């Protein structure tokens, strides 16, 4: 049998490395054998589809919003004198939000003044008028313009095609008018597939 003293340093190191490799491979094999995907949070994903079928989409039950409110709640409770705290928290929260709203409005007004714009927003008159009151949806408009049938979004690039400029302008203007009317009065009827 060889003893430790008789071996050279390189042979010793080789031996140590060999041992390390053996241990690591044994550990890796052990981990592969022991590991599985059978834990609760992985299993929970199987119930998502059933949950959606029975109780609607998942953002209904998200805890994101309460957690967001929780930080405010903690801070406001610390500010109060801990007596009748509910009322105080609500009052302080309301007051804070009113001040925030005022600050936002004031900043917006300041910005407008700096940009030399009118202080209040004036609705554009020309945009609200529909020259053809019978046409209310983009599909109707497409039929009126004798456009190819398809998705309503595809009609707008079609309007910019090589047509006489007057015709193109009239089509694009009428498209913009109809779309603004639809946006403002909520007559948009997309079918969600």
């Amino acid at each position, binding site marked *: 049998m*060889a*003893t430790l003293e008789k*071996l050279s340093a390189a*042979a010793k190191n080789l031996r140590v490395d060999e041992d390390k490799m053996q*241990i690591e491979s044994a550990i890796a094999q052990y981990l592969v054998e022991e590991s599985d*995907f059978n834990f609760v*949070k992985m299993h929970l994903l199987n119930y998502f589809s059933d949950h*959606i079928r029975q109780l609607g989409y998942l953002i209904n039950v998200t805890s994101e919003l309460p957690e967001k409110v929780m930080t405010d709640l903690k801070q406001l409770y610390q500010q109060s004198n801990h007596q009748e705290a509910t009322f105080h928290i609500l009052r302080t929260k309301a007051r804070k939000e009113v001040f925030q709203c005022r600050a936002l409005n004031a900043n917006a007004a300041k910005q407008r003044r700096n940009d030399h714009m009118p202080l209040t927003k004036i609705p554009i008159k020309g945009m609200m008028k529909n020259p053809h009151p019978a046409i209310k949806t983009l599909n109707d408009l497409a039929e009126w313009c004798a456009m190819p049938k398809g998705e309503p979004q595809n009609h707008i690039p079609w309007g910019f095609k090589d047509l006489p400029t007057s015709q193109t302008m009239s089509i694009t203007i009428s498209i913009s008018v109809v779309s603004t009317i639809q946006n403002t009065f909520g007559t948009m009827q997309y079918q969600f597939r």
Partner: protein
Amino acid sequence: MLQGFFWNMKCISPMTIIVPDIPHSVYLSMLKHLIDWVTSLIEQHSRIDQFNQLWAIMPPYSGFARLNQPYSQVMQWSGKEMKALGRVIVPVSAATLLNPSATQKILFTDALLCVKNSVYFHIMAQYRYHTEATIKYMENLLEEFHCHKDGFSGFCTSKSTKKVSEAFKMQCTLDKQKERKSGHFGKTFCSCKKSSC
């Protein structure tokens, strides 16, 4: 579904017992596990430097808060960072696992499919409109994830197993040291060429 004792009671259904809450069941469990598996796989194949570099240089985009640090330097995983992770993990891991060798090829493609399916699943779970078709998509994605997950099986260990393995490792190293001190070496590493060895 397995038949349990509670399922026979009229007031209880499995959907109301476990409420799938998006931040905890998707971001903090699914994506957190996924990034752990992916990084340990990449570390095993010594490509973690590329992964870190790619992680830091992702350009900003709407709906994606930019990650300025490399992955290993991110200390706190808040909701914002987890959301960004969901957006970014597929391209970053795909770019890191480019050009595999012949032995790595199957493992890497499986890992990428696994990542892709789980990320698509978590995005689809947050849809605001669901039809029967989208729910079918979700089920298929989950099924495919379970088909390709075997590449990660070495990294998916519970804390108790990790503890046991560490203790096992300590024990083994101590044993080997003792063996070395006692002077019994195998024949293959004997330097003296005498016949008595």
